[in-house]
């Protein structure tokens, strides 16, 4: 009898507990507008006060997959037709603060905004130039955000970027996330910086942050595909403190990536010697900054090692001697890229490569004498760059395919 009573009590408890999550914080998935990408801009205000207002735009996941594509209930297959058009909804709102603008953007939607799945935060150039502190602080503070969110800056308006459509994946957010996570740094065109890295560098007293650069292009290759706007992540945005001050071009971006080090990469370096041409394909880069202080003078040394292969040659007999020559010339090319990055960062007065950070970490006493003018001493310091490019493979064939002339 007692046991039966216990079983009954247990049953009652289970039934009761199934109602527990529904008290105050009940959230049904049908009531959520799941935001996948967020764009933040500063735009001229519509009211006559002449003040700029925040403009927040969001890609919101469409709850049901479009039914007309006839893919049944398999959501992933409904990319037919307009290459994923209609998979995500786009909203835009303005307001005096970010949260006011966020409320404004969802004013027509019966659902509540949910930011837990934001995979990319895109900041427009104007907002970035005025400073991202407010955006980043909100992001770190508001509970729904995660630190895995990628930070990207676009020349122009972030809203334009959100208007783009995915080409490969079924949503734009997935495409951007995929590019940032495992593509852009491995082909040497940009760097995936998530908010953890970005905020950390912003908070640290000794380094300036960078963020990926994203912009819209019109794909030209196939006129039958109706995507008129697609995104490209290429280059890096340079910040001085929390303010955007400039951009790195292709060469400088590569120099930055070399400085960070990269694994399982495929970055081609062209080596030209008169008529002879070869491609040195970098597979792995390791890099180290050394800070030395001798008699009050600060010296930095960047040591780079790259491992790669040579598969593509023109008019070169692939011999050990030739490879040594290629190694030498590739080293010089990589070195010039790193030097270009250093020059550009000095021009912009933003220590993005972390020289002073290294000084802080290894030469503590010198760092403590620097104070708030640390950027000046870094600009004046001597920086040496050593690059050791190694060829470890030359493909599946031997010396050269003997092709008759």
């Amino acid at each position, binding site marked *: 009898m007692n046991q039966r009573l216990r079983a009954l009590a247990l049953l009652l408890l289970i039934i009761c507990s199934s109602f527990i999550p529904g*008290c*105050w*914080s009940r959230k049904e998935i049908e009531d959520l507008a799941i935001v996948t990408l967020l764009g933040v801009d500063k735009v001229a205000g519509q009211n006559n006060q002449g003040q700029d207002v925040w403009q927040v735009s969001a890609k919101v996941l469409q709850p049901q997959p479009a039914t007309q594509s006839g893919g049944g209930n398999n959501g992933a297959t409904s990319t037919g037709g307009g290459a994923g058009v209609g998979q995500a909804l786009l909203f835009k709102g303005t307001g005096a603060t970010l949260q006011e603008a966020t409320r404004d953007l969802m004013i027509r939607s019966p659902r509540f905004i949910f930011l837990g799945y934001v995979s990319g935060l895109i900041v427009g150039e104007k907002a970035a130039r005025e400073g991202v502190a407010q955006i980043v602080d909100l992001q*770190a503070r508001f*509970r729904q955000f*995660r*630190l*895995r969110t990628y930070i990207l800056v676009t020349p122009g308006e972030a809203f334009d970027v959100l208007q783009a459509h995915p080409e490969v994946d079924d949503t734009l957010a997935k495409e951007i*996330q995929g590019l940032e*996570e495992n593509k852009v740094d491995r082909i040497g065109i940009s760097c995936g910086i998530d908010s*953890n890295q970005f*905020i*950390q560098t912003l*908070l*640290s007293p000794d380094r300036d942050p960078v963020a990926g650069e994203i912009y819209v292009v019109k794909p030209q290759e196939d006129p039958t595909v109706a995507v008129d706007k697609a995104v490209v992540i290429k280059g890096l945005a340079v910040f001085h403190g929390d303010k955007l001050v400039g951009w790195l071009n292709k060469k400088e971006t590569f120099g930055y990536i070399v400085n960070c080090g990269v694994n399982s990469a495929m970055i081609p370096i062209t080596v030209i010697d008169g008529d002879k041409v070869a491609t040195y394909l970098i597979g792995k880069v390791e890099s180290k900054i050394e800070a030395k202080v001798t008699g009050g003078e600060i010296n930095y040394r960047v040591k780079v090692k790259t491992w790669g292969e040579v598969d593509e040659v023109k008019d070169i007999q692939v011999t050990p001697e030739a490879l040594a020559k290629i190694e030498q010339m590739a080293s010089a090319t990589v070195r010039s890229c790193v030097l270009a990055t250093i020059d550009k960062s000095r021009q912009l007065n933003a220590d993005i490569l972390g020289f002073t950070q290294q000084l*802080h*970490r*290894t030469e*503590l006493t010198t760092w403590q004498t620097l104070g708030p003018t640390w950027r000046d001493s870094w600009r004046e310091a001597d920086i040496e760059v050593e690059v050791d490019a190694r060829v470890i493979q030359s493909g599946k064939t031997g010396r050269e395919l003997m092709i008759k002339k």
Partner: protein
Amino acid sequence: MAALLYVVVLATAVLFVPAITAQKAYQSAWLATLVLPTIIASVVLLAVWKLGMYFPDKTLAEYSEVILGKLLGKAVAGSYALFFLVMNILVVREFAEFLTVNFMPETPIWAFCSLLVLVAGYAAYKGVEVIARMAQFILPLFLLTLLIVVLFTIPDMQLGRLQPLLEGGVLPIIQGSFVPASWYGEIVVLVMLLPSINKPQEVGKKVLIALLAMTITFTAVTFTALAVFGPYLTGDLLFPVLELASYVNIARFIQRLTILIMTFWVSGIVVKSSLTFYVICLTSAQVSGIKNYKYVLVPSALCHILGSAFLFANTLQLMEFLDKYWTPMALVFELVLPLLLWPVAAIRLRKRRTSK
């Protein structure tokens, strides 16, 4: 017993302490959790254990009267009861704060407080053995979650973030040590539990092992937070370890572990709160001469709910209290008082022996 104390200390420590320590000791915070707190806690353990060996069948509430006389003894034991009450009010509030800040902002704080107190009160009603069994069950799950957090964030660690070691000298580390020390010192609950343990002779050794284990775990967790988020962000986040759990991303497949981990932390906090609840009831009953501690359950439960729900207006007040006021207060009860009682007890006992 060792398992119980391990869960009791770590359940709330992993939530709040890494941030507080990193604010003070920055990249050396993992040293701040490693060295000094362990030494302090070992001293606490030694004093508590010695006292327990002098009076193997008595709790602190009983032997303090023997040591210090009726009036002073009752005062000391009474203040311990209050200390445990404050400790548990903080635990309940931390629990509620953790849930409202991160997951359920709409739910009123008293709802979480009352639910936890209800569960903890029931466990306290069932007695210390039930609580210990609970701890045995929770411990492996709890450890597993911490292990997952540490292992799965290895790809995101950069050891350079821990440099330079000892910036600003040893002083920041010492300053940062007191908060973890006050947490490790919570093993002082032993003063009320020693008589109910089967083999009190082994307690010293076992608790020492638990202490070392919790130091290693906690240092590993702090180390992970620093290596992933760097010293500055770790100090600015309220719950760095929770943030770690949500940061985990293995091949875009294993991610968003927050809820899984929260479940086990909540159960750890239930164990902690139950034990403290039990200790409060036992102490206050023995001080006021009530034979059965169960009579004190309901009034102290009310104190808990009211105290935890209404003493603090917001999270920052709680953090400030934990940082500025709780630490010295805790160290007085955890370290100073046992260290004072120990020599007094030794002298008293020797006198009694010579007078016989």
